[in-house]
């Protein structure tokens, strides 16, 4: 019994210091005005201001687009990789870019997308003229999706990899075509991977800020941008913390919606 407690102590310490304490601090901060008085005004302002509500909507909307795009690209990719001979190697190649610093990757895209970047060079070369690529919604979504894709592929790949191949044979054996097998067996059985990928992409995407600034040119203002602004520019830590609390709540909502629900049988559809 004693040894078990000893094992768990570092874990509890870690949770207390790096999870509970920061959240408690944020919650505490969110009840103070910019002048240092205890108040509910931050929450009142957040809920009544159309600016903040629009920002919230924007965050959710863009995070959703990024997640759905990442899913649409990642599922087929994970599926194809899983069919390949050296699948672990191919997976590694996809995971590799995540080891490069995010800021570096972002600057690389600035280089690619700028007026004198390679993409515009190419467009001019094929006679399409140069275009404003940087600082558009499209480039923001493109880069954000690119960065999030590995985090979507990994859990989906794992769930496909764990799928017992004899289940696919069983489905074929019972007369299902490839498509029917995919829809009735493969998709439901890889749902846990899709949900994990959804969480891993959607939640961080809610609070993206660096890419919105460097690639999106601050045209898209999300909650992440707002938090950065409040802490670093306006110094309104109370409001920043309030938005932080909102994001944490959003996180819990997403986790609740995508939780593992055990299929308790049910009727035949």
């Amino acid at each position: 019994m004693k040894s078990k407690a000893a094992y768990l102590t570092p874990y509890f310490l870690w949770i207390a210091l790096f999870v509970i304490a920061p959240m408690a601090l944020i919650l505490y901060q969110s009840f103070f005005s910019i002048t240092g008085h205890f108040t509910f005004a931050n929450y009142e302002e957040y809920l009544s201001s159309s600016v903040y509500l629009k920002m919230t909507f924007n965050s959710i909307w863009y995070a959703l687009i990024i997640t759905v795009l990442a899913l649409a690209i990642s599922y087929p990719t994970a599926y194809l990789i899983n069919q390949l001979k050296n699948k672990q190697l191919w997976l590694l190649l996809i995971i590799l870019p995540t080891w490069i610093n995010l800021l570096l990757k972002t600057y690389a895209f600035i280089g690619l997308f700028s007026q004198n970047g390679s993409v515009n060079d190419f467009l001019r070369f094929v006679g399409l003229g140069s275009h404003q690529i940087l600082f558009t919604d499209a480039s923001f979504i493109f880069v954000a999706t690119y960065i999030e894709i590995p985090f979507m592929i990994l859990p989906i790949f794992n769930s496909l990899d764990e799928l017992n191949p004899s289940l696919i044979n069983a489905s074929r054996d019972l007369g299902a075509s490839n498509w029917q097998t995919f829809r009735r067996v493969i998709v439901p059985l890889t749902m846990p991977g899709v949900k994990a990928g959804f969480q891993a992409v959607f939640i961080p995407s809610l609070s993206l800020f660096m890419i919105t600034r460097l690639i999106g040119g601050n045209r898209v203002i999300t909650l992440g941008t707002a938090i950065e602004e409040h802490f670093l520019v306006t110094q309104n830590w109370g409001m920043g913390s309030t938005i932080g609390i909102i994001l944490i709540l959003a996180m819990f909502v997403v986790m609740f919606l995508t939780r593992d629900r055990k299929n308790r049988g049910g009727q035949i559809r």
Partner: protein
Amino acid sequence: MAGKVIEFRHVIKSFDETQVLKQIDFEIEAGKFYTLLGPSGCGKTTILRLIAGFLHPTSGEILFNGQTINEVPANQRQVNTVFQDYALFPHLNVEQNVAFGLEIKKVDKKIIKNKISDALKLVQLSGYGQRNIDELSGGQKQRVAIARAIVNEPKVLLLDEPLSALDHKLRKEMQGELRALQQRLGITFIFVTHDQEEALAMSDQIFVMNAGKILQSGTPVDIYDEPINHFVADFIGESNIIPGKMKDDYIVTFDGHDFECVDAGMKTNEAVEIVIRPEDLDIAPANTGKMNVTVDTQLFRGVDYQITAHDVNDNEWKINSIHKTTVGQMVGLNFDPEDIHVMRFGEDEATFDARLEQYE
């Protein structure tokens, strides 16, 4: 009369360079219980996968009702499989698993309901429809797998060692149930096992395989009584295999003596092996039998004693006897001419059958 459902013509299957099946030829008749019997890795599952359509032959032809099905995809074949690991869908409950094939065929919902309940009743799992797969025991899973297959009314049911995961008692029970089920439904069963007792107990027809070849096919009694070679004799039941010589038709020499036998059609003085089953040997007082052996061990097994002994040439003899002997004692052995089975070296099945035909 029942015709051929499945036929293999010179089927060869290779994976990369290795030939896993070396020229397989056989015919499967409708409504019978067939067993593929052989040691691990001999290619039993590969044959089932070829029939089901998960694999395609490297060369040769597979026919179904007289038509080549080499190119027919698995989902369009009228066979269903009970997989070695059951392969039940974990995201569906028992009822949904059984319904899977019928839903794919877009059968009417009401009919599906009836068929499911019939199928579950058949495998004695009525009332388990709403259970999750992970709430079932091994034997129950196996029965769901059978229900899921037979509900589609296949022409042929393939069963890949479905009983190997069960304990001895349940296994015996399921053997009886499967056999009864097959006779009730009249569906052709192709059953895979590496357990010779199971094969003998259940089958109409057994194919004994080794290393990608079918060595012998026949009824359980044929194969048990007339094994074609050393491998089959050894694999099917316990046996005494002794080197000998064919002195003349109906006379074989082993252990320095001539014995009367029922085999013929071989060359004079051809080297052969003879097989005598332990239960065909009777113990007699020393010097009153056809030969003498000295008892080495004796084991009581409930119904009889399992005795090992050796003769003057140090050949080992296994004897099953209901009479007790004494270890270290010399005893006589008696057997009848028809208990001696003569096997030639390297005789193939066709020649073997033809030779047996001549003098039977």
